[in-house]
């Protein structure tokens, strides 16, 4: 059956409606007024019975499609009441009025159908059926009651749909990996999805301002409070990142909170809607990338410093090379003209002595002396530069033998000056014999050179030894020097005394210092002007521990 209209059967008003609609449908189907009335009366008999005895009864009016394109108007009354004698009475009365009345009893259900054949059924097309349905839908109410009823049904229908929609919304929102919430202008949470409640572990009713502070990381609380304040004042969307405490683990994970004002019909903000999304992984990646950036920066700095170091090494190598070149120049090219100067001065003095007068001879002597100083300077500079560029071989050095040999070398000077030299026995150490000899030669030479006029020069060579090192002191009773100068004297070309009285190049002690350093030792001086000078050389007994680090 094609249903046209439904009528619920609950009260007297429904009975009128059932009658009226049955009649109308018959009319729409083109049946005569008498047939309409008869059919409607038969339907009313059944409907009345259903209204009186039944529960949740209703009636459907429609068109039945039979064989050979025949059609019939059908009214079916459904009821859940027992089939009482009243029903029997009603059905028999209806049967008197209508040709075709059928009763179907199915357990507690009663189904009574009344049929009215339409002889000219061919004119009732599907479009016509639709127009019947439309007619009953827009049928003007027959009474205020009918109007209320209809509205009520519509409302119920809407409520049902709303329930369905809400169910599907919370189904969706509870399953999204998001926390969703809305909050009213009083700060009360009006909605939160399951995810939010599960994450925070607090029932929605407790999610007030006080509880929010419990779940926000202490470091973020102040910022969040001020952000929320701004949000309320400016009514602009907020999008910020805070750490929220996960109830299940107790860990604070990074989240992005987005809150937007929702305006009502009158453009007033009474609601705020927002969502919270877990961005902890993203944060971790950001942090890792940041760390990585720092790592890269550090690496770049390292590379930069390494390059600088390489440049410095290169510059050092270059200056070492230049030093070597200089040493070569000093040893060869500077000595070449000097040697010739000596030769010519010599020739002049030897061969032309007779023809040069006394002052000329004096000038020649001065010239030879100046050339002699230059020769010394070149010799010392060469010795000093060689110390910087050569790697020296270390071996057993008998310091006692070296000092004894040196005293023999200085024999003439010692005798001439009447100097007294006392020497303690010295040990054998690990070092370079040639250089150590040079060191002590310079110290002895200085001790003899800077003697006081009229005083017997006394030179004491003493030695202190520990298991690792020894300190050799060369002390004289000469002119000494101002103790303030004790560091200056080891600088290259430093001279404390006038050249005219004490000739020298100012390189000797620099050479001593360098040799001591090459032996991983040191040299220091103490003195008093006019009293004494004392030089202490400290040397390790063995160079073994320096071989790998040097």
């Amino acid at each position, binding site marked *: 059956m094609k249903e046209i209209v439904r009528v619920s059967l609950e009260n007297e008003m429904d009975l009128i409606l059932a009658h009226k609609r049955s009649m109308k449908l018959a009319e729409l189907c083109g049946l005569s007024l008498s047939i309409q009335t008869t059919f409607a009366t038969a339907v009313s008999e059944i409907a009345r019975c259903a209204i009186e005895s039944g529960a949740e009864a209703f009636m459907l009016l429609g068109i039945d499609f039979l064989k050979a394109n025949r059609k019939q108007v059908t009214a079916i009354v459904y009821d859940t009441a027992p089939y009482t004698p009243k029903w029997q009475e009603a059905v028999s009365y209806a049967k008197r009025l209508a040709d075709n009345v059928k009763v179907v009893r199915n357990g507690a259900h009663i189904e009574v159908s009344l049929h009215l054949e339409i002889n000219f059924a061919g004119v009732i097309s599907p479009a016509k059926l639709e127009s019947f349905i439309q007619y009953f839908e827009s049928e003007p109410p027959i009474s205020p009651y009918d109007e209320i009823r209809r509205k009520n049904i519509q409302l119920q229908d809407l409520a049902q749909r709303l329930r369905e929609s809400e169910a599907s919304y919370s189904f969706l929102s509870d399953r999204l990996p998001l926390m969703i919430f809305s909050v009213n202008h009083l700060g009360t949470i009006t909605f939160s999805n399951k995810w939010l409640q599960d994450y925070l572990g607090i029932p929605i009713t407790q999610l007030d301002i006080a509880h929010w502070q419990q779940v926000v990381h202490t470091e973020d609380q102040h910022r969040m409070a001020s952000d929320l304040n701004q949000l309320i004042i400016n009514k602009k969307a907020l999008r910020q990142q805070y750490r929220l405490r996960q109830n299940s683990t107790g860990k604070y994970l990074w989240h992005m909170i987005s809150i937007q004002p929702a305006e009502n019909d009158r453009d007033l903000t009474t609601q705020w809607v927002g969502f919270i999304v877990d961005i902890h992984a993203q944060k971790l990646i950001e942090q890792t990338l940041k760390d990585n950036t720092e790592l890269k920066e550090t690496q770049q700095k390292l590379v930069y410093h390494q390059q600088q170091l390489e440049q410095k090494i290169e510059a050092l190598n270059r200056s070492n090379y230049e030093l070597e070149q200089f040493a070569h120049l000093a040893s060869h090219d500077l000595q070449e003209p000097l*040697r010739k100067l000596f*030769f010519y001065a010599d*020739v002049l003095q030897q061969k032309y002595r007779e023809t040069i007068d006394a002052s000329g001879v004096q000038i020649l002597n001065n010239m030879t002396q100046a050339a002699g100083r230059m020769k010394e300077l070149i010799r010392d500079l060469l010795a000093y530069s060689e110390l910087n560029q050569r790697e020296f071989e270390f071996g057993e050095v008998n310091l006692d033998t070296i000092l004894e040999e040196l005293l023999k070398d200085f024999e003439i000077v010692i005798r001439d000056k009447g100097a007294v030299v006392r020497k303690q026995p010295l040990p054998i150490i690990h070092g370079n014999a040639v250089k150590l000899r040079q060191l002590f030669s310079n110290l002895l030479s200085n001790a003899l050179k800077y003697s006081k006029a009229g005083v017997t020069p006394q030179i004491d060579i003493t030695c202190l030894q520990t298991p690792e090192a020894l300190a050799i002191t060369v002390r004289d009773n000469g002119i000494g020097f101002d103790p303030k100068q004790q560091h200056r004297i080891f600088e290259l070309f430093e001279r404390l005394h006038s050249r005219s009285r004490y000739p020298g190049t100012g390189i000797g002690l620099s050479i001593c210092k360098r040799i001591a350093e090459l032996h991983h030792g040191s040299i220091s001086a103490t003195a008093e002007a006019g009293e004494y000078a004392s030089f202490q050389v400290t040397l390790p007994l063995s160079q073994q521990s320096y071989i790998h680090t040097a």
Partner: protein
Amino acid sequence: MNHDFKILVVDDDPEDHFIMQEYFSEAGLGDIVVFRENGEEALSYLAGLPPNGLPALIVLDLNMPVLNGLQTLTMLKEQSHLRHIQVVIYSTSNNDHERQQCLEQGARDYFVKPFTLEAGTLMIERFRQMLAESLQ
């Protein structure tokens, strides 16, 4: 004085030719000294001499262009008819390493070019001794 031997001095510095000439002259050997300016010139000079006209002593400066003292010494010692000639090296610088190399290559001695007439005369005396030994 009449001598039947020669001394060859190889030095690129013409001033040193003059100075050496002075030293040799002082020692009475001035007329037997022959000068060449580098190793190559010295070798071609020697190549043109008859076996009995070869110098008894060759004095090589160490630092010279074209062929230096050490190279020339090595080449002299490679030739059988020159190998017996006494060779000394003299140089401005006093370098132990170079001295060692020269002696290893067959030089009789290594002199630092003298700064004074006295030292120069001593050097010539040493040459004279070498000549005396070789002529015996």
